[in-house]
C-alpha cells in the first residue's frame, strides 16, 4: 500500500465539503462521535442538513464564521491506498493556502458546479495547480443531478476547460461527472450516467500511477546532517562518518561514482546505511545515510550528485514567487533569508519582472511590488551558491521558501524557472 497526497480546491458552494465528507464516510474514516458532534452543531445552528464542513473546519474562528481559513489535513485509507487530503480554501484571499496544500500534492481535484460551468476561480485553481506542478489534475464536475445528468452539459464544460488548460501545460487531466450529494461516480459508477465510461473518482484516486512522478533520473542528495558517533568503545564506530539526508532525485547505489558540491570532487559511494541494515539502492523519498570512499570535507547544505549530471550551482536565480506576507511587500532591494533543500542563505531581490493576474494570467510589467497572495516573476541574487534545478524538473531541488529576517515569518514560496 502506498500513499497518495491530494489537494482539493473549491468553496463550500461547489460541494467540496460534501465530497470530502462522502469520501471519508464511505471509507469509514468518519467516526460516530465525530458525526454526532457535527450533527449536534448543525442542529444547534438550525441547519437542515448535516454540515460536513464542520468536520474539516477545525478552528473556532472557522466554525464561528462558517469559512475555511487554513489548510486542513484529513486521512483515509482503502485496501489499495492511504490518502492524505490537503483541504484548501478556494477564495482568492487564500491563494497562499492553496499553494501550500498543492506543494506536496500528487494530484489535485478541482470542483466545478455543473450549473455554473468554468468560473474565474476554476481557472485560478487550475493555474495554481500547474504552477506548483501537481502531476495529476481531476476536474470533478459536480451537481450533475441538478443538470439532469446531461452528457451535453458535461461535454460543454470539458471542452471549455480543455481549451483553457492547453495554455497552461496542464499535465494529466481527467474529467469526472459526479454528484457528491447523491454519491454518483464518487465511490462507484453511477447508473444515472450510463454515457460516462470512465472510472469513479475513488477508483481513479486508487489507481492513478504516481511512482514515476518522482524524479528517478537526476541523482540529487542534499546533505542534511553528518553522523559521527565518536564512540570511545568501538573502533569501527569511532571512525564512522555518514552523510544523512532524504533523496531528492535519482537512484543511488553502492559503488556509484558521485560528485560533491560545492567542492567538485568525485568519490564513490561505499555503502548506504539505515538502522535496519545497508540497502542496495536509495531513491526519493527515502531517508538514508551515505558512506563515501574519500575523506572530503562535507557538511550540511552540500549536494551529492553525479559527475555527468549536476544541478546548477547558482547565485542568480529567476523564480515565480507566491508572496505570503500580510504587511510586508516584496520589492526590488528586499533582503530575505532563502531556504533551499538543506541550505540556507541570504537573498537580495534584484528585479520584479511582472506580476501575474491569477485570474486572467495577464502579466503586469509595470508592477513595483508583490503583496499578499500575489504571484510574480522575480530575479534574486544569493550570498552563496545554491544547487538548483528547474522546478519543472524537480520540485524538491527547484522549490524554496523565503523568510523575513525581522519577524522570522515565512513570507514567500519560490519555484525556480532559470538559474545562472
Amino acid at each position, binding site marked *: 500500500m502506498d500513499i497518495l497526497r491530494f489537494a482539493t480546491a473549491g468553496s463550500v458552494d461547489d460541494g467540496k465539503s460534501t465530497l470530502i465528507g462522502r469520501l471519508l464516510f464511505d471509507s469509514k474514516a468518519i467516526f460516530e462521535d465525530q458525526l454526532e458532534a457535527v450533527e449536534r452543531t448543525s442542529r444547534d445552528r438550525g441547519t437542515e442538513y448535516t454540515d460536513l464542513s464542520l468536520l474539516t*473546519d477545525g*478552528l473556532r474562528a472557522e466554525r464561528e464564521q462558517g469559512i475555511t481559513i487554513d489548510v486542513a489535513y484529513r486521512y483515509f485509507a482503502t485496501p489499495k491506498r492511504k490518502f492524505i487530503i490537503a483541504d484548501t480554501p478556494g477564495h482568492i484571499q487564500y491563494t497562499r493556502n492553496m499553494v501550500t496544500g498543492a506543494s506536496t500534492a500528487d494530484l489535485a481535484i478541482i470542483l466545478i458546479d455543473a450549473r455554473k460551468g468554468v468560473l474565474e476561480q476554476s481557472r485560478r485553481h487550475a493555474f495554481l495547480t500547474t504552477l506548483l506542478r501537481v502531476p495529476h489534475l481531476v476536474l470533478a464536475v459536480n451537481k450533475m443531478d441538478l443538470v439532469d445528468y446531461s452528457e451535453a452539459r458535461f461535454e460543454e464544460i470539458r471542452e471549455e476547460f480543455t481549451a483553457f488548460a492547453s495554455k497552461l501545460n496542464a499535465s494529466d487531466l481527467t474529467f469526472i461527472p459526479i454528484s457528491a450529494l447523491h454519491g454518483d461516480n464518487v465511490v462507484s459508477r453511477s447508473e444515472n450516467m450510463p454515457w460516462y465510461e470512465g472510472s469513479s473518482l475513488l477508483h481513479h484516486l486508487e489507481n492513478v500511477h504516481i511512482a514515476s512522478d518522482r524524479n528517478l533520473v537526476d541523482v540529487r542528495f542534499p546533505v542534511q546532517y553528518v553522523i*559521527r558517533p565518536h564512540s570511545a568503545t568501538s573502533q569501527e564506530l569511532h571512525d564512522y562518518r555518514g552523510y544523512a539526508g532524504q533523496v531528492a532525485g535519482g537512484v543511488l547505489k553502492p559503488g556509484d561514482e558521485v560528485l560533491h558540491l560545492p567542492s567538485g570532487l568525485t568519490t564513490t559511494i561505499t555503502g548506504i546505511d539505515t538502522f535496519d541494515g545497508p540497502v542496495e539502492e536509495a531513491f526519493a523519498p527515502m531517508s538514508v545515510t551515505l558512506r563515501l570512499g574519500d575523506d572530503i570535507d562535507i557538511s550540511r547544505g552540500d549536494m551529492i550528485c553525479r559527475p555527468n549530471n549536476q544541478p546548477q550551482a547558482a547565485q542568480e536565480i529567476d523564480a515565480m514567487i507566491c508572496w505570503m506576507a500580510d504587511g510586508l511587500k516584496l520589492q526590488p532591494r528586499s533582503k530575505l533569508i532563502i531556504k533551499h533543500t538543506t541550505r540556507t542563505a541570504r537573498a537580495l531581490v534584484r528585479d520584479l519582472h511582472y506580476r501575474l493576474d491569477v485570474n486572467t494570467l495577464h502579466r503586469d510589467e509595470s508592477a513595483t511590488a508583490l503583496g499578499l497572495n500575489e504571484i510574480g516573476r522575480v530575479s534574486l541574487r544569493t550570498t552563496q551558491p545554491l544547487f538548483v534545478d528547474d522546478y519543472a524538473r524537480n520540485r524538491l531541488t527547484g522549490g524554496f521558501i523565503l523568510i523575513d529576517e525581522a519577524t522570522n*515569518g515565512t513570507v514567500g514560496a519560490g519555484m525556480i524557472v532559470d538559474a545562472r
Partner: protein
Amino acid sequence: MLQRDYTTSQLDVLEAEAIHIMREVAAEFERPCLLFSGGKDSIVMLRVAEKAFWPAPIPFPLMHVDTGHNFPEVIEFRDRRVAELGARLVVASVQASIDAGRVVEQTGRRASRNRLQTTTLLDAIEEHEFDAVFGGARRDEEKARAKERVFSFRDEFGQWDPKNQRPELWNLYNTKISRGEHIRVFPLSNWTELDVWHYIRREGIEIPSIYFSHTRTVFERDAMLLADSEVVQRGDDEPTFEAVVRYRTVGDMTCTGAVASTATTIDQIIDEIAATRITERGATRADDRASEAAMEDRKKEGYF
C-alpha cells in the same frame, strides 16, 4: 518495498518523512528535546529518533511531564526504555509545580492535573532553554490538530496562534526563532492511529502492558470506564466492578478511560481499531470532551 517500480509503502514514506524532520531539528536547533510519556505515539517517535541518528546515539534528551497520576505500568516502562537507550531523561513534575505554588490543584470529584501540565511543561522548557520540543501528536487525532503545522511556532509565553501560522511547503521547514521562543515539532503529523499500530507491529516494538486486555477494577463515569485508584476521587454513587479492558490511549488515570476489549496481541488490537466506529480521543479522553474547542483552547495556552 517493491524495488522494481520504486513504489514505497505507506509506512516507509511516513518513517522517511519523520526521520527527515528529526534530522532537520538536530541540525538547526541548539537544544531540542523529545517528549516521552511512554504512550504509543511517543514510543514510535522514539524509535524513529533511534533510526534517524544511528549508529550515533539520539543527540537530545527526553522529557516527561509527570503528573504524579500516571499508570505505574507506564512509568516502569518509561524508565526501562530510557535505560536501554542510555538516554538522558528530564522529568518535569506537576507535583513540584504544585508544591512551588506555580499552580493550584483542582478539587472535587473531577479534579484533574491535565490542564496543570501546561505550566509545568512551559516552566521546564524555559528552565532547560529548550528551543525545539518534539511531540507525538497526530493530525488525525483531533480537528484543531488537523490544522497545526509540523513545525509549530510558540511565542515566549508558549502560546500557539492558530490564525497566524507559518506556511509550510514541500519539505522545507522554517526553523527561525528569537530567544525565549520555541518550536513544537510533530514528526508523526501525517500518521493515523492505525499507521502507528501497523508500525509497532512491523518494528516489533515493546509497549506498556496496559495497551493489552487485562482485568481491572473500574467504575463508570460519563460512559467511560475509569480505573479505581487512590488518585481518582470516586463518589459513593459510582460503584466499582471488575472488567476486561485495555487502554487505547495513555494519559492520566484521572481522565483516561479504558475500553472493554479482549485484544491480547497487536494483531487483535489492529483488528479492533479497524472495526471501531469511535475515535480514540472520543472513546477515552475526558479532557477533550469539555467543549468543541477544548483542544484548541488548551493548545493556545501551550499544551502538548
